[in-house]
């Protein structure tokens, strides 16, 4: 392989910590062999992978250009920065961190505005009364334009804002905003409220693959290994292992439990000794243990899982389908 397989991860702050934790949980330890300030790293025990530490927006543009193979970045950036995103990248998996909702927010004083169709009406009458269009401050220019266009809203102008967007209406540089609302508290503190049907995107950090990168056999093999571990870890987190021993036949019991508790039977029926191993979603565990005890189990053990590897590799299948 002439060029390395590149995995791009965020270079700074909470996103970097979360991404490193995420990969570490999947048994992929990111290392910086040449020191903490280096922006190039590797994965311990996995040769041929170069880890590039970049800003989230750089990761997004590198993915779009096909200059890196896999990257961790927010869906909000993917949708905003890459035209026809689904043609250029594959969103493989939401990673469970970096949550951010992109929302339309207006001043609380606008008691007559609750929905996007109110905004449609208000923007038009504003243009007629003030001889100019309402301004929307945002850094999400493309998301805003597409969303407003989907509601047929035309009488507005976008004012590009790269920081402290929620202050724009109070500062008089815009009438409303489109921005990230992580909690809503910042919006409220600035006298703004979210429009009811004004959530443009519920975003989180995603593992993203570049369709334009070089995907030869070597690259696919490496992606398969990485995604296999990520999937094994994700599946492990989605289940608890429940073990119990039964004296009698358990076929009916397992069928019932599958229906009631969404369990899986990774090893099929019980062992010769009558020990049954079940994988159960965490929120169903206690109910399942009761059910098993009521049906003849003497003791039930519940354990957390490290990894669950299976023959199929759903994340890799998703990547391959997208390439």
């Amino acid at each position, binding site marked *: 392989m002439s*060029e*390395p397989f*590149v995995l791009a991860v965020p270079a700074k702050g909470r996103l970097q910590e979360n991404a490193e934790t995420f990969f570490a949980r999947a048994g992929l330890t990111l290392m910086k062999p040449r020191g903490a300030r280096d922006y190039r790293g590797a994965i311990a025990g996995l040769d041929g992978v170069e880890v590039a530490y970049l800003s989230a927006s750089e990761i997004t543009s590198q993915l779009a250009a*096909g*200059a*890196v193979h896999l990257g961790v970045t927010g869906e909000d950036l993917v949708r905003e920065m890459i035209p026809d995103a689904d043609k250029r990248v594959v969103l493989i998996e939401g990673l469970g961190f970096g949550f951010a909702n992109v929302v339309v927010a*207006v*001043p*609380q*004083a*606008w*008691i*007559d505005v*609750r*929905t996007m*169709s109110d905004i*449609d*009406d*208000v923007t*038009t*009458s*504003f243009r007629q*009364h*003030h001889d100019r*269009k*309402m*301004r929307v401050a945002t850094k999400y*220019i*493309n998301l*805003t*334009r597409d969303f*407003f*266009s989907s509601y*047929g809203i*035309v*009488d*507005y*102008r*976008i004012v590009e804002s790269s920081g402290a967007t929620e202050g724009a*209406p*109070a500062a*008089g540089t*815009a*009438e*409303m905003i489109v921005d990230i609302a992580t909690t809503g508290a910042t919006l409220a503190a600035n*006298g703004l409220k979210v429009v009811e049907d004004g959530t443009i995107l519920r975003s989180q950090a995603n593992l993203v693959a570049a369709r334009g990168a070089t995907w030869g056999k070597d690259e696919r093999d490496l992606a398969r290994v990485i995604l296999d571990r990520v999937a094994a870890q994700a599946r492990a987190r989605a289940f608890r292992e429940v073990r119990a021993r039964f004296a009698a036949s358990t076929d009916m019991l397992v069928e019932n439990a599958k229906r009631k508790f969404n369990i899986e039977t990774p090893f099929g029926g019980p062992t010769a000794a009558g020990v049954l191993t079940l994988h159960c979603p965490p929120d169903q565990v206690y109910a399942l243990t009761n059910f098993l005890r009521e049906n003849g189990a003497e003791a039930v053990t519940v354990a957390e899982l490290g990894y669950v590897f299976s023959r199929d590799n759903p994340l890799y299948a998703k990547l391959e389908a997208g390439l």
Partner: protein
Amino acid sequence: MLKPGPQTPDLNVLGTAMDASVTQRQESDARAETLVASYERAGYVRVAPAILQPAEPFLDLSGEDIRRRMYLTTAPDGDELCLRPDLTIPVSCDYLASSVAGKAANYCYFGPVFRHRSDAAAEFLQAGIESFGRADKAAADAEMMSLGLEATAHYGVPTPDIQIGDVALFASLIAGLDLPPAWKRRLIKDFNRKTNLAQDLDRLVLGGNNARPEYQGVLAALAGSDPKGAHALVTDLLSIAGINAVGGRSVGEIADRFLEQSALGASAKLPREVRGLIERFLSIQGNPDEGAAALRALARETKMTPALASALDQFESRTGFLEARGIDVKRVRFSTAFGRGFDYYTGLVFELTDPKRTGDPLVAGGRYDELLTRLGAANPIPAVGFAVWIERLAVYGGAP
């Protein structure tokens, strides 16, 4: 991680290819020059506005949506500039800045415009005409269509499909309906956008979008009360709640619209007979004479004659001028719904297409009497014009 750059092409091959395209371009330019020269002889002064234009007027008039099709750049001082996506706005701006602003003036142009198109080159040639300040609107409309037909004939497409609409008819219909102002605004906007009007009408008839449970009680209590008192109450409530008006809208404006919602009623619906009338109106089509007859009949039956009279007179007068110019009006296809989703037209809208090809326009134009006001003119100035797609015509029409 540098990807290999594009291969250096064989210079000789490139040279030959360039020669061929230059020759082609020169021939195409010469043919268009002949067309523009004929416009000059007809009294249209040739102008050549700057290619680099301030982006503001385009975004303001066509909406943010056009941004995705424009080539934008930023000047060192922060001003947003663009490569002109059309010539109507640049010609209009230059006219307004000139000493003849407000007086009758006729212009023609020929040159490149720039729009992102996924299936064709972003730089393409347009010729066209802009006519400002003419009070004889019906005659001016007919002259534009006639000059547009000369353009297609010049390129060997003598009998294109002629499709026309008239935005003023729909505007007059809505203005004449007995409806709250909020709904008139809404319906005019629905007509102008590209979404499905039928769906919007459904929504209005069902009233689904107007349910606002949170304030229903207050709105119901305010409905029918003395408007002045209600207005003062809403204003007071806002200030008692310590809510400052931010973001450009005054408390008065907010109160007004809040009360307007109460006037509509919390579950207001568009009356079914109004919907029926709008649908019948928008289904009218045929040649201009058939269209006008159908419109007059509908107006008589629904007692809308006073509302539609002036727009219809204008329409019929235009048809008369078309005939006087030797255009066979039986060939003209008129539809009341044609012209939906066009940016800033206020009256006639027309398109010439090649019946044997795709529906892409060869010539497109119409009347935009509010354009110059929106560009800053103190008084309304009538404006009408059209643009010619030079390359498309050259391909469809074939060799000269």
